[in-house]
């Protein structure tokens, strides 16, 4: 094999300019592949992180995915002779029944934390201004377990809800709209007609203005009192240790608790599909770069094979079998692939580092952000493997052709 490697190297070095041009194809292909892949993966990871961090991984709501079996159906089962008509579904009381039992079950699960929520529409009144909001009643001590709202506090804190049961957390946009500031007292009216007074104990800013304008947080007890739904909740928020298991775990939980249990993947299915399509496009485009580079290699090795017909005949006459001839030219492809990777990987890393230095301010953002990039090892493996695969594939056809050269045809021709 050392001899074949020696001959292959000599062939490549004899055509330095051609070899360098085809090598540059692979080098740039690998480098661009890494740079583009890194930025796409980075932005995707950043997007998913925000999506996963800012929303519960699983939400149990007071709905049923399938309608409940009605008593008449339950009683008669599948009996063919019974005609049940004008069956009206039993009126369900809104809210999750027996939620303490569900919470107790969830507490036994080692891979998740959960917290109950009672949400409902309410109207905030302040200085003659009214604004409709979604009021979320939560257990203050548990908010940090299932929500990242604490990370976005601009003024006050979530812990103040613990010491002040009549406290309320509101968004910056809402505070601005109603000219509210910390420690102001506001009136909140529910659809039931009951009105309660809350004190602003915290102002948060997530950067999503619709969220900041609509969502307010109070203690669960006060929300239950305001909505006149004592001991009721209408959703349970769950955070998983591993967010990726949310899809399967939500199904298991739903099978147990019977209430609709939705994972973040289900809730963001359209977004995840978009990301998958985006990835497909990205890998197709970047792979095309490497394929073009592979054509360069094919071109060089094909030319070498054509020019080397006489040498192939001589090697065969010396006693080199066809397999050795094939290996010589395949080795050239492998060498170009290895050299392309060796130069392309550092260049790709340099591109990624360069991208990492770019800071920009997206529309609507108050602070400049850096380009999210990924240093995931998998993309390096894909780039290296694809470059090697393309190089070997590109050299395979010329190598095969070379191995089929009949020495006598060349010698007879006196080339």
């Amino acid at each position: 094999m050392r001899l074949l490697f020696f001959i292959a190297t000599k062939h490549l070095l004899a055509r330095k300019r051609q070899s360098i041009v085809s090598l540059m194809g692979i080098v740039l292909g690998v480098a661009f592949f890494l740079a583009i892949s890194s930025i796409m993966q980075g932005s995707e990871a950043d997007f998913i992180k925000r999506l996963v961090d800012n929303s519960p991984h699983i939400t149990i709501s007071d709905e049923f995915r399938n309608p409940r079996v009605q008593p008449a159906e339950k009683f008669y089962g599948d009996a063919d002779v019974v005609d049940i008509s004008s069956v009206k579904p039993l009126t369900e009381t809104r809210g999750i029944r027996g939620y303490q039992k569900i919470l107790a079950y969830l507490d036994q699960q080692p891979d998740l934390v959960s917290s109950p929520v009672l949400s409902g529409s309410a109207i905030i009144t302040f200085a003659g201004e009214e604004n409709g909001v979604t009021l979320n009643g939560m257990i203050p001590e548990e908010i940090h377990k299932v929500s990242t709202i604490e990370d976005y506090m601009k003024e006050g804190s979530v812990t103040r809800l613990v010491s002040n049961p009549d406290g309320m957390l509101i968004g910056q946009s809402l505070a601005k709209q109603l000219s509210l500031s910390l420690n102001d007292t506001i009136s909140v009216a529910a659809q039931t007609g009951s009105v309660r007074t809350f004190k602003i104990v915290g102002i948060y800013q997530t950067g999503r203005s619709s969220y900041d304008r609509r969502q307010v947080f109070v203690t669960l007890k006060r929300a239950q009192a305001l909505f006149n739904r004592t001991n009721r909740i209408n959703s349970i928020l769950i955070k998983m240790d591993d967010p990726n298991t949310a899809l399967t775990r939500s199904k298991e939980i739903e099978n147990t608790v019977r209430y609709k249990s939705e994972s973040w993947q289900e809730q963001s299915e359209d977004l995840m599909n978009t990301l998958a399509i985006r990835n497909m496009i990205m890998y197709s485009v970047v792979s095309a770069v490497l394929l073009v580079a592979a054509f360069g290699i094919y071109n060089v090795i094909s030319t070498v094979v054509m020019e080397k017909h006489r040498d192939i005949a001589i090697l065969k006459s010396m006693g080199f079998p066809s397999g050795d001839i094939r290996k010589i030219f395949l080795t050239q492809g492998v060498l170009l692939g290895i050299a392309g990777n060796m130069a392309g990987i550092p260049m790709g890393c340099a591109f990624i580092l360069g991208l990492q230095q770019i800071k920009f301010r997206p529309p609507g953002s108050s602070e400049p952000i850096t380009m999210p990039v990924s240093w995931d090892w998998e993309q390096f493996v894909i780039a290296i493997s694809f470059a090697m695969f393309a190089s070997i594939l590109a050299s395979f056809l010329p190598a095969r052709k070379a191995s089929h050269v009949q020495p006598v045809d060349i010698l007879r021709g006196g080339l």
Partner: protein
Amino acid sequence: MLLRTENLVRTLETEAIPVTLVKNASVEIREGEYVAIKGPSGSGKSSLLYLLGLLDRPTSGKIFYRDQDISNFSNNKLAKLRLEEMGFVFQFHFLLPEFTSLENVMIPMRKLGRLSDKEIRSGATQRLVELGLEDHINKLPSQLSGGQRQRVAIARALANNPKLILADEPTGNLDTHSSENVQEILQNLVKTHGCSVVVVTHDPEFAKRCDRTITIVDGEIVSGNEHASKYTG
């Protein structure tokens, strides 16, 4: 008997009509024998040599090497036999242009892989020195004269101490002086290395140096077998 053929036929399939290059050729090459194959251009001399050198397969007939029928050997087995037992010299030196004289000679030795790198290097150097190429060991073929290239080609053919050297008009492309030199070298090979040499030539003077001359006309051996009977008989 080193090499023996029985009724070798080589027909080339062309688009128009099949062309028979070699007809019923029965040849015997003994160990240490120096044989010339002579004939007019296009008579099938080289085709016969390629068959004897296992570079081409006969359409019909049999080839025996050391009394073993090798007609049905696989390509790989034939390649191994060429590597171990044969050496080739062609009209056009056919040296590998990217490799120096020394590397050209070392390649078949390294392929055979019987010696260490050091032994291969010294063996190849010795071959080149024997042929008066001590000053051209590290030169590329493009830096050598025609005669020097042909001597490097002979050194390469001798690299693995072959039992049979097959030369296809080795002086056909050389000036008179170089031609004389190559003829002498080939003649000496038989004496010094004890190998058999088969030379294709249409130079009568060259043929006269050989122990025996096989004449071929239109693919058919017309003389040379009676000379062979001296050895067989």
